[in-house]
């Protein structure tokens, strides 16, 4: 028991070093913009570049649209599958996993080939980017909602609400959504983190976004680019921290869900 404990901590420590060392190195590097001393000069320059606000603002907008569409698509679908068609759950799960199987480059070219000509000309509209992001976020959103629905007795709660006079919309809005609060937040933050850091789609579909901006910065300004990466990491962690914080305890709340 004692020996096993020591080994476990040793392995855990090694893992942590493996994981954190590059991050710490990057962070320290980003502080060396001024050759003679450590400073936040690189961060100051990043924040004063109008390109940063523009690209980050664009990414925030894409993330917001993606989250709304993804929620509207996934929640009713998965709810329906749980309630009426549990047999189809594995099929739905498989479909949502497609973005893990198909590389982003392939997907992006597929989208361009499919939507650059009639009947659906979408390449000139940001809808194509948001659509791609919805697909990209599917595995995370599906898992979050699915875990949330598994943690409550969906069918009985639905029937209890119905017998008390609630129609479908009321059941979803007053009973299902509130009990999925943490699961939904989890899906939303994961989607947010993915969209904000995404590069391939934004670059290939040629829409302004944070990912391509970071890459562009790398080509000329190393310190600023690393500062951006560090910021991006911090943002993702902050998102996950917020999920954990919102998910602590609370009456009958589902555990934090997500494919991580």
């Amino acid at each position: 028991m004692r020996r096993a404990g020591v080994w476990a901590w040793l392995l855990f420590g090694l893992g942590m070093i493996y994981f954190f060392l590059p991050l710490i190195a990057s962070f320290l590097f980003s502080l060396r913009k001024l050759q003679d001393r450590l400073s936040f000069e690189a961060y100051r320059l990043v924040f004063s570049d109008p390109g940063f606000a523009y690209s980050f603002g664009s990414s925030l907008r894409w993330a917001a649209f993606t989250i709304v569409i993804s929620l509207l698509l996934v929640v009713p679908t998965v709810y329906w599958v749980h309630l009426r068609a549990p047999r189809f759950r594995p099929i739905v799960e498989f479909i949502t996993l497609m973005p893990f199987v198909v590389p982003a480059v392939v997907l992006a070219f597929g989208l361009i080939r499919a939507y650059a000509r009639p009947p659906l000309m979408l390449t000139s509209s940001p809808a194509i980017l948001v659509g791609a992001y919805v697909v990209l976020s599917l595995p995370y959103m599906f898992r979050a909602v699915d875990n949330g629905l598994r943690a409550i007795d969906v069918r009985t709660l639905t029937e209890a609400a119905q017998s008390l006079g609630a129609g479908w919309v009321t059941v979803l809005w007053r009973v299902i959504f509130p009990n999925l609060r943490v699961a939904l937040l989890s899906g939303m933050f994961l989607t947010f983190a993915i969209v904000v850091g995404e590069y391939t789609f934004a670059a290939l579909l040629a829409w302004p976004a944070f990912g391509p901006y970071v890459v562009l910065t790398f080509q000329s300004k190393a310190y600023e680019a690393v500062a951006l990466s560090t910021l991006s990491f911090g943002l993702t962690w902050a998102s996950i921290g917020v999920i954990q914080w919102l998910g602590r305890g609370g009456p009958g709340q589902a555990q934090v869900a997500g494919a991580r």
Partner: protein
Amino acid sequence: MAFLDLNNISKKFGAAAAVEDFSLEVQKGELVSFLGPSGCGKTTTLRVVAGFEIPTTGAVVLSGEDITRKPPHQRNVGMVFQAYALFPNMTVSENVGFGLKIAKKAREEIGRRVREMLDLIQMPQLGDRYPYQLSGGQQQRVALARALAVQPQVLLLDEPLSALDAKIRVELRSEIRSIQQRLAITTIYVTHDQEEALSISDRVVVMNAGRMEQVGAPYEIYNYPATPFVAGFVGTLNQLKCTVIDAAAGLLAHNGQRLKTGALIEQKEGALTVMLRPEQLHIGVVEGENQLSGKVESVAFLGSIIRIVVRIGEAFLTLDVLNKRGHTLPRVGDEVTLSFPPHACWVLPGP
């Protein structure tokens, strides 16, 4: 016409029939239990009344209105589930007030009604608790209050006590019955527990394999079972294989020992089965009654009663003796004589 009328209800899931040809008239204020083993169709029938299932054939008529195809949320039928099904994100008060809020009642009215309901279930102090802070028994009381708050025309209970401990189960079932009688609310109660059904119902419907076996008052069901299934499912029953000696006089024999029955025997000769309730048998010789001799096989102490199994030839007869202090109990291996009155025998043709 009855208050709630179930008319020739059948429900098929694919090729399998869950309920077949079920007809029942429930009077206003009556508590009717559906009793049967799992898979007998009792829950399906209840769900047809609730509106969660639409019957393949037949009609549900509630106070003169055909509600067969009406969606559940428009039926004004209260339901209590085995799994409690309280909304985890709401307090006790919010749970109880949910139906009234949906019905857009005024806030004061909701508050008043919720307090009334919490008094009814004797939990006036616990309105601010969340479901996870309550015991199972308390949760089920809240579920009952929630179902009753909207003043439904019919109350449906689907195995409401199955998830609770034995002691709470007995307490809560008499509480459910007393609330039901005080409010005079028409109620259907689904259970697989015969003791529960017998103790709280005005009438019991015994079901098996999707069909109704018998409908009647608890006393009738227990004492005059209409079919072998009912006799076997409700209470313990001894079976004794006998041969006919004199059909007209009601004389039978088991393993060389004669016995007389009050029941009418249609069979002139051959084998038949005599059914006996354990509480009808007693140890010792009683004049004018049937006597069978055998050997004590086992003695089990169950608290208020003592259950003794006696071997008579090839048959085993179970009998219950009331536990009185100072009583001397037979021991395993003792030779005993059992007595039972002729009218206690219930005769079934065939071995």
